[in-house]
């Protein structure tokens, strides 16, 4: 199943991605899809995914709804977009 991931600018930079969006063939569950993304990013994912799991402060958004770590047990539909956002801090 193809899932499209969109990363905010700063997060894409930290992940070492040249483009802020990437499409992957992944399983349909959100946790497994996130693991596929972490694998795809490779070494650059280390600070973003300590221990192989996405850092809890990274925001995961599906269909405009934020999914905190305790609320990620959802099934994705083919072609769905998962948006990942790094919380911004500055002023």
């Amino acid at each position: 199943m193809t899932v499209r991931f969109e990363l905010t600018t700063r997060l894409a930079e930290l992940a070492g991605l040249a483009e802020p969006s990437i499409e992957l063939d992944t399983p349909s569950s959100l946790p497994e899809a996130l693991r596929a993304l972490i694998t795809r990013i490779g070494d650059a994912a280390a600070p973003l995914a300590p221990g192989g799991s996405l850092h809890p402060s990274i925001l995961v958004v599906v269909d405009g709804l934020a999914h905190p770590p305790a609320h990620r047990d959802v099934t994705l539909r083919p072609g769905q977009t998962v948006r990942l956002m790094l919380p911004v801090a500055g002023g």
Partner: protein
Amino acid sequence: MLHVAPSPAVAGNRHRRQMLLPWLDAEGQRRIRESTVLISRVGGLGGPLAQSLAVAGVGRIVLFHEGALLDEDLHRMVLMHPERVGEPRGSQAAETLRRLGGPHLEVHGFDHRITEDEATRWMREADIAVGAAPTYEERLLLNDAALAAGKPFVDAAMYDDETHVLCVDAGKSGCLRCLVPEPPPWRADFPVLAAVSAMVGNLAASLALRILAGAGPIPWGELVHFDAARIELTRVRVPRSAGCPACAAAERTSR
């Protein structure tokens, strides 16, 4: 601390033009005038934010901003005085706000970072808290204090071209701690263009004024994310987290 008391004189037509707005009638303006706003940090984001609240007629502003003014602050901190580099920033900002806000505005300016005790104390009197600090520790502190007092909270932040605003309706909507339970580990000497930090500061000010006036619409519990480089606005619904201690405190207050 600098405390500037208001003059008994009241400006006449100062707010007439904003009262032409369909959502801001005389009653709304009176609410704004009688309100107290607690703000943590009045730098590149919080400075323009506080400036807009002051000129809009807010009655009392309580601000906290630690540290002395640096030369590198001057490209964005519009409330500071260029000739006073090296002097505390909170007092300078308070003086500028007092001048801008006119005789009706009372300002309390503190030259240190807000503490938990101070946030708790001021939230008893404040009608709303606004977080404009560059660290999640400080923003979460203000989030928690506002919710414990059962008061609304507006959080605003930026990094480079990315900005966000979150309006929290205590005990009813998701809050900043629901979204980010713990401060993220990433820290950086954040890049900032005044045009971008002022933009998000003024969006937060606009929403805070609507909340104070009792007007809408307010995107309660929605993270409004704007990327100024991509010119892309994203709204994200933030669900209440069952285990959020800040929301639990807000529920206890509302009982």
